[in-house]
């Protein structure tokens, strides 16, 4: 009987990669598989039903040669048409059972498998949301996205078709052996005599091809990476006349891929025909030995025919199981990476007894804060300062002095090693992150816009905001003019990353977004990339509007910004060395005053 879902004997790498995977032995060793199985646990009823269906499929498939034997021996050879008819009816019934069970099995296995994939994807995503900013800085974003996409996809094959193939092929193989022994144990032994050879060949092939396929994947990735990089940098390639060199380098990478791929062709090119040959040898053994038994009257011919029919139930599953070891390897590698991410501890969790932050006025305080990105290099040392609500504070200092770090602590992207950060007297660590974010907004240096309309981007701060509210904030920051000038206005679609708008425009949108959030505290890391003078003017005006009516802490790079601040904090080597208003600091005659004089001198030369 043609088993549902049978595949090529001759498929080469094309069809081969699509199904199941290997021996049960490895299963046990793979603890990850147990974890994976736990994801399937909620669907155990469907899974169980599916397995039952699989058993029915296998049994009905294996029944065919047996029925054939009965038809031949009891029916045809005996001249008993009645029995023949019964067998034929039985045959149709078994075929129908196979049909029904196959349907159930295919559907349910896919359902469970795809649901496991869905759950895993969701779990991974949810976990990534919880991970600290630190995680994102350590890993490249591409790596993270790959886990969520490529790896989950690799898994999908495994948990749907892989499971099916393993169980059905495994059962078929085992079942066929059982049936052979039931039919005639002597002939069974004789037939199985070739098994050691076949199994040995299969093991050798499997090991070799696993290595070769891993190499092929690797080289293909190298080809892809070369092209990706060269396309990204094609302008540099052309500007520096590297076309010929690149062509030659690519030829090498291309050839390497072709050559390792050829190796897999050779390996499967020998293995599969060999197994076919062994199948022929098996048939001959059955004919010779079985034949002699039949001639001696010790065996009925129907058994012989059944044996020959069973041989294919042997070799097909064996080949399929060996082909798919590679898919298994690839999938398990993916699973490993996924679980690595899931096992990463989020370290910016809310404390178990965290309470929501009540509405605050906006008094900020840093109390004896010490912090460093790595253990032994503190960036901030024993920093203390308080900012009354409603004031605008500018942080100035050389690159590396610690301004950006201060701001990150205020925004609770990191927790201090020593000391505390407080808002209205509440230690940031005692309140829930979510409630804090609702009252404290951060505008980072590089404005990031999501794909979607400008309206949606600004509304990201408060999705329930009405259109007129959005326009109002846009007007306040000075973005309304340029947005209205666009063909689709607020509905203009922004490309990922904000392409299509100039840097200055993106900045203004970013400000509008922050304003819509209407936070009591605003933290702004001033952008350093230069924009044309007109945009600069807009941005300055926008900042003034932004800082009204709330506490604002700014990492300043422009003297104009600093001069407008209520108070200036001069940061140097992780400490605050001076503070006061512009005039006070000038009068004080310290660091700031010196800088101001420097500026005056520099300003002249510009």
């Amino acid at each position, binding site marked *: 009987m043609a088993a549902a879902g049978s595949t090529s004997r001759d498929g080469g790498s094309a069809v081969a990669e699509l199904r199941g995977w290997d021996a049960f032995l490895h299963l046990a060793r793979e603890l990850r598989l147990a974890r994976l199985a736990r994801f399937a646990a909620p669907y155990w009823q469907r899974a169980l039903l599916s397995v039952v269906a699989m058993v029915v499929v296998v049994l009905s498939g294996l029944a065919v040669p047996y029925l054939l034997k009965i038809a031949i021996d009891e029916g045809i050879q005996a001249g008993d048409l009645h029995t023949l008819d019964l067998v034929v009816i039985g045959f149709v019934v078994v075929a129908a059972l196979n049909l029904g069970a196959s349907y159930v099995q295919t559907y349910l296995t896919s359902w469970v498998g795809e649901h496991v994939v869905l759950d895993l994807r969701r779990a991974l995503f949810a976990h990534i*949301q919880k991970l600290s900013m630190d995680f994102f800085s350590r890993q490249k974003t591409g790596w993270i*996205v790959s886990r969520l996409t490529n790896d989950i996809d690799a898994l999908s094959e495994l948990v749907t078709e892989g499971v099916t193939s393993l169980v059905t092929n495994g059962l078929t193989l085992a079942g066929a052996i059982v049936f052979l022994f039931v039919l005639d144990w002597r002939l069974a032994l004789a037939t199985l005599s070739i098994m050691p050879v076949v199994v040995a060949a299969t093991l050798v092939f499997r090991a070799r091809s696993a290595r070769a396929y891993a190499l092929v994947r690797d080289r293909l990735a190298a080809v*892809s*990476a070369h092209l990706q990089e060269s396309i990204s940098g094609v302008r540099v390639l052309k500007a520096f006349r590297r076309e010929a060199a690149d062509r030659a380098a690519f030829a090498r990478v291309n050839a390497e891929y072709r050559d390792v791929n050829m190796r897999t062709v050779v390996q499967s090119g020998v293995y599969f025909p060999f197994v076919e040959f062994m199948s022929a040898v098996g048939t001959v053994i059955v004919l010779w030995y079985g034949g002699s038994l039949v001639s001696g009257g010790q065996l009925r*011919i129907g058994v012989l025919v059944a044996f020959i029919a069973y041989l294919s139930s042997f070799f097909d599953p064996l080949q399929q199981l060996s082909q798919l070891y590679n898919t298994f390897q690839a999938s398990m590698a993916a699973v490993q990476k996924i679980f690595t991410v899931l096992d990463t501890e989020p370290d910016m969790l809310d404390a178990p007894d965290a309470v929501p932050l009540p509405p605050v006025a906006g008094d900020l305080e840093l109390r004896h804060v010490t912090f460093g990105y790595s253990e032994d290099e503190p960036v901030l040392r024993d920093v203390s300062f308080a900012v009354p609500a409603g004031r605008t504070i500018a942080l100035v200092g050389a690159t590396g002095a610690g301004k950006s770090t201060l701001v990150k602590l205020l925004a609770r992207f990191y927790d201090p090693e020593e000391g505390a950060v407080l808002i209205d007297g509440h230690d940031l660590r005692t309140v829930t992150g979510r409630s804090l974010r609702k009252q404290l907004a951060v505008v980072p240096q590089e404005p990031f816009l999501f794909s979607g309309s400008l309206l949606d981007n600004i509304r990201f701060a408060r999705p329930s905001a009405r259109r007129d509210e959005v326009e109002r904030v846009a007007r306040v920051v000075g973005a309304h003019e340029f947005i209205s000038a666009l063909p689709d206005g607020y509905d203009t679609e922004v490309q990922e990353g904000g392409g299509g708008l100039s840097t200055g425009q993106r900045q203004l949108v970013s400000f509008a977004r922050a304003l819509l959030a209407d936070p009591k505290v605003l933290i702004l890391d001033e952008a350093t990339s230069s924009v044309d003078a007109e945009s600069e003017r807009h941005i300055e005006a926008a900042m003034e509007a932004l800082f009204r009516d709330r506490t604002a802490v700014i990492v300043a*790079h*422009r003297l104009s910004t600093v001069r407008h601040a209520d108070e200036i904090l001069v940061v140097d080597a992780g400490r605050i060395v001076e503070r006061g208003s512009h005039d006070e600091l000038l009068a004080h005659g310290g660091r700031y005053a010196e800088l101001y004089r420097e500026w005056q001198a520099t300003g002249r030369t510009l």
Partner: protein
Amino acid sequence: MRTFWRITKLLGDYKRLTVAGFALAFAQMGLSLLVPRVTQLAIDRALLGGDSHMLVWYGLGLIGVGAVRFAVGVGRRLTTGKASLGIEYDLRQRLWSHLLRQPFAYFDRWPTGQLMSRLMSDITNVRMFLGYGMVFFAVNVVMILAIAVILLALDWRLALLSLAFLPALLLVTWRFSRRLRPILRDVQQRIADVTAAAEENVVGSRIVRIFAREDDEMAKFSDRSTRVFEASVAAARTRAVYVPLIAFLPNLAVAFLLWYGGRQVVQGSLTLGELVAFYTYLMMLVYPAQVIGWLTGLAQRAMASGERIYELLDAPIEMEERPDAAPLPQAAGAVTFDRVSFAYGDRRVLEDVSLEVPAGRTVALVGHTGCGKTTLANLVPRFYDVSGGRVLVDGHDVRDLKLADLRRHIGVVTQDPFLFSASIAENIRAGRPEASAGEVRAAARIAQADEFIAALPDGYDTVVGERGLTLSGGQRQRLAIARALVMDPRILILDDATSSVDVETESRIRAALADVTEGRTTFIVAHRPSTISLADEVVVLDHGRIVARGTHDELLAAGGHYAHMFGDAEARRCDLDAVFAQESGAAAGGEEPAPARRPAGRPAAAGGPA
């Protein structure tokens, strides 16, 4: 259809292998068809006929056939495999070489992802079809016909009746693939949506957190993932219906065979051996019938991919070097724009621009975003061709010169420079691979890069780029300057070369640039007055035309456009970091330990299948 023939003709380069492959495949098929026949004879003559000593011969015959089939099978796989891998190699090489010859404008139009998918998965689809699809298709079609003939010869009534399932099988297979294809496309699309959502969320994670939108993001992602699930289950449902059905039909045929054929054996009009042969041949039909559906799918995918590949291969090279292009061994570096106009699609970027720049002069190009300053600079190395007018270098129209020669004399530094995954030294040497280590260091020193490079653990051997160390914007900029310098070019183009750099670094680079522009014709496109002040002359552009020229002071005094842009800028412009930088001189250490950031707009992770 035309694509089909074009793809098929690719086999022509491997004629001998292909012909051998086909021949061996047919031989293999023929040998496989022998087996049931021999088995039938063995059963009828030797076992039932009492001629049992013949059994040995039949057995040996089968082994012989098996052995030959083994050899033929190996040969077939090796020949078709080699041919198809060769075709894949050739096609990829050809396509990439062709693309490399295209100019900037071409790459402006084509997104990286589109090019990558054609270079990777589309070519693989064509290979699969040529390597396996065609041979299988031909062999299986012939096999079906041959078996039909054999069966008809054995017993035509039985044959007709048992072969009746074939058309039904083919029909079902065809309907299956038609039903499944749109569903699979749907699955692919939804997976793409999930990928896009994942990417955006990760790249914009900071913003998500800042506005406490994690829940919404989770909901959005969950929703898209569920859609993938739903589509996958729909596909599974379709498979669950059709695949068992495709297996059931042959079983029905076998049942019929047993019923009718069995009676015939009892009546004596058919031997048992013949019945067994019938059964075996019928079983041999199942696989080809099933696979034809898969093969047509393969063929269709190959056609679609082929079209996409030829779309690129057929595209003419948009900027050719003329066959009689003149060499330019030396250049003084005088550049002239003679009534230059340039349009990008329908957008007019430059209008009637005339400018003469004597050798060694440093010119700053300024103006609002989109005024055409970068475009103007890009015309000199012929990254783009003018729509009207001419660009002259040392009096020669750049279109009359050999491209390689022209570009050897022009060093370009852009905003956000691209570095290859190679060592720093190799990156710097890009323009002149024969540069010595000393020359590389010298260039790096002038570019103010030597210090930080030497501080790295592997120094100049440090691998940078996508797959290497991530350098800060300022560091990359300085490397790019060194890269341009090592060529010792007569013309230098600094396009917004300091704008994405913080001002402290910029003041350092500025010091370097002052040295570098000495004696070279330099075009500086910049916003910052500090950079602009390096120039001998400032050219102000507005909407593609030159509106003012002069020195910085002259223009300020003139009170026009320029003064408007930069006049009151001093207070705004004075960046504190520059002040700090000057104050602390070279002593300012490394930059603040900040997490490595990807500049916005970088291409996503590699698009091809890994």
